[in-house]
């Protein structure tokens, strides 16, 4: 699994930045090469080669999230056309499990990062707010996997959820108040008290466990 002794400097730097171990990085690199067909960058089309992803209802949004510049920690906005390995790792690092040795502040930051990722996924027009339309979009996609559920229902559910969010975030509203959309602070408020760290992570094993499925 690669040279244990002479770890290249970039690898170490990557490891530091993203928090993965070298084995995990190696492993992900191998996967990256598979996906990109040995190119240096990945484009959206490369994700089409993953068979299981086809059945995922929110596939579009997830792939989109990989190219979202906000997730890539770049200052600019919008979508990147292609991402390199470093970006790939950055996105993956959002899903790292919590480590035992994290302190309060790190945990908090970690949590915020995960939630921010989620927020960006919902907020498709990048304006920093999740509006009703966007929310409806998300819910429709989410529930599209169920063939028996009609669009109307999905919409109503989205509306209901939005209302619920509004009531949590803003509480009582006056008769003329208009609720623009969910901002990130509101989003955080919604998730207060709910344990997201354990729900939103993937185990990146040190060993090879794979489905080389193509």
């Amino acid at each position, binding site marked *: 699994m690669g040279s244990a002794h002479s770890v290249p400097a970039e690898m170490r730097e990557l490891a530091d930045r993203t928090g993965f171990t070298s084995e995990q990085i190696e492993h992900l690199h191998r*996967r990256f090469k*598979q*996906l990109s067909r040995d190119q240096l960058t990945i484009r959206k089309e490369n*994700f089409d080669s*993953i068979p*299981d*992803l086809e*059945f*995922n*209802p*929110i*596939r579009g949004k*997830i792939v989109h999230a990989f190219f979202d510049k906000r997730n890539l920690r770049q200052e600019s906005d919008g979508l990147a056309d292609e991402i390199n390995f470093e970006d790939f790792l950055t996105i*993956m690092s959002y*899903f790292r*499990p919590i480590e*035992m040795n994290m302190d309060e502040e790190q945990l908090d930051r970690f949590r915020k990062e995960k939630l921010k990722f*989620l927020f960006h*996924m919902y907020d498709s027009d990048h304006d920093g707010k999740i509006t*009703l339309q966007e929310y409806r979009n*998300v*819910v429709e996609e*989410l*529930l599209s996997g169920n063939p*028996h*559920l*009609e669009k*109307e*229902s999905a*919409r*109503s*559910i989205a*509306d*209901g*959820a*939005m*209302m*619920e969010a*509004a*009531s*949590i975030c803003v*509480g*009582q*509203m*006056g*008769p003329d108040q*208009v*609720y*623009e*959309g969910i901002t990130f602070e509101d989003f955080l408020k919604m998730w207060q008290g*709910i344990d997201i760290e354990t729900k*939103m*992570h*993937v*185990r*990146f*094993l040190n060993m090879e466990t*794979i*489905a*080389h499925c193509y």
Partner: protein
Amino acid sequence: ALHRTPPFPKQIFYGEENPIKEINLLLKLFLHSNSNKLFYSFLAVFHLSHKVTRVVPESALLIVLGLFLGGIVWAADHIASFALTPTVFFFYLLPPIVLDAGYFMPNRLFFGNLGSILLYAVIGTVWNAATTGLSLYGVYRTGIMGHLNTGLLDFLLFGSLIAAVDPVAVLAVFEEVHVNEVLFIIVFGESLLNDAVTVVLYNVFESFVTIGPENVTGVECVKGIVSFFVVSLGGTLVGIFFAFLLSLVSRFTKHVRIIEPGFVFIISYLSYLTAEMLSLSAILAITFCGICCQKYVKANISEQSSTTVRYTMKMMASGAETIIFMFLGISAVNPEIWTWNTAFILLTLVFISVYRVIGVVLQTWILNHYRMVQLEIIDQVVMSYGGLRGAVAFALVVLLDVNKVKEKNLFVSTTIIVVFFTVIFQGLTIKPLVQWLKVKKTEHREPKLNEKLHGRAFDHILSAIEDISGQIGHNYLRDKWSNFDRKFLSKVLMRRSAQKSRDQILNVFHELNLKDAISYVAEGERRGSLAFIRSPSTDNMVNVDFSTPRPSTVESSVSYLLREKAGPVCLDMQALEQRRKSIRDTEDTVAHHTLQQYLYKPRQEHKHLYSRHEIMHSEDDKQDKEIFHRTMRKRLESFKSTKLGINHSKKLNKIHKRDRGQKRRNSNVIPNGKIPSENPVQDFTLKEKGYCSEVSYKSENSQEENSLLMFEGLEDSYVKEPQEKKMLLDVQGNYRSAAARRVQSRRSFHRPKPLQHPKLQKLASLPESCHVPPHSLEQEETQL
């Protein structure tokens, strides 16, 4: 090593006892002796006293009671009264408890932690058995115990039967202690799955003892190991097979609704007996039968059958548990079997406790490398402490052949003491321990639509990430299973109608809708009686506007309100009422169908349940309207004498008073005679019913979510709603028109109450949608 008996597990009990005789004795004890009266009165007394049962687990009380009764009989007659025989235990008392456990098992939680559970169940039990047995043998060799007629194998045999954590005891004790669900499922899952290990070890060692220690070779040991796999996997497969059968059968029982519950019990019991017959692990069989069939059976069978099954199962399980503990107590009063060996008994106690702790710590340390959610020290403490031994160990030890195992009496006595100790002492102290250690308890949270939605989003995201990063993880597997289930299994095993309405998110949505509806109506009323009538303007609605273009004209159509203003949630019913009368265009029917599509269906199923004859479609509508009126009136009436906190959020706790104007208006609302189609509004009721049924699905169907313990409170709803519905449906049959109904109701306004009254008292915890105070109808009548 020539011997006829293979180390394969034989019948674990070979009925020397005649079951009929046993039952006779049971009955005799229950019905004839004087102790019965005491028995019943005692049961009544401490069942009523919740204070007692909060501190002392019921199991402990029952044992003590049993001891007491046994003592009485002994004192009176100087004979040992009835003893708990293995046959009765294994054939009649244990299956209901295990089936109950399997049927109500939270599947997602269970399978999510299956790795940990299996590790503890298999490795943990083997560890416990081996170490206990060997340590006891070691100490025996030092001579402290004096002379015993035993060898190494006897000790190992004893170790194997005392090692297993008992599901009955665990359930009984953990019931009082509400630890968090992960912890509970691990301990409980372990207690269920270790049966295979126990069976194999017990039989292996027993046959070893039979053939004599000199004849044990490596081959035999290997055979033993192989038999473990056969027993466990075989038992599981038998269970799964019968689960499949049961689900399939339940799909076709539409026309024999009455005996649906029967199928559930009979087929499950059949799985138990079949596994037993094949010398496989019967407990595993019935457990997996319950686990695998629950989703499909609950979807397929009718509401009432589902309730029946629930209650019968709980009743049988509860009864069996009571009997088990009672008879444990009674059986202990049998001087013939008492052999006392201080060292042995004491050391057994010490060893099982110590080795359990060591085993748990070691295994947890290994597990934490692989688990996402780590198990902390506190969890480990609870796990070690919660490893209770119970009646299974007792039954197994009584089963020993005294000719082969010379020291049977000693073993029996020790087992009794161990069981008593764990159940009574550990049971008593575990609750304070849990509180002292501040173990994370189950969270009871109100269902949030957002949580459900995002939970669903998470599942998909994580699966996607696992796919992208090329790993086979939990989510990948779960996703795969879920797809497989939806594509093939559900099509085969679930009714067509059930397939559509199974979405969890829908359930929460319905429920929240209803809550909203009520809060909304209440809010409007609070503002004064005229607020409702005044206008359909948006200031009557819950004040959230999502910047959608507001209607410039007030006279907008029903569907506009429905679709544009955050869906059916913002339904100004009064306004709709009026507008409906004036606007009769196709939009109405479109709106009706929209709602009907996803809200109406769950309810429809029930309609056909009670009618013995076909219901024509037109009658449907009429009956729907009648139901609607009835429940709308009830619901609005319910606001009359209870208070409502003004809070837009979902935390409705009280309902407030209505004033006279409302009532008057309300009765105006109900038109005389034929009612024009109030489709959207009508759907509210249906939603309610639908919701009630969905809710009850939800309370059991906690597969996908693991934060569903919040729905425990909703169990109550189960009682009311079938009755409520039943009542309504009864009512349907008698009515042909609204007027007639009103006349009839005025005449006999006590009528519905006997049906409604008892349960309505319990309505408190449930979302107010189902809450109908008993007096509402009465008061309504007076107005009319």
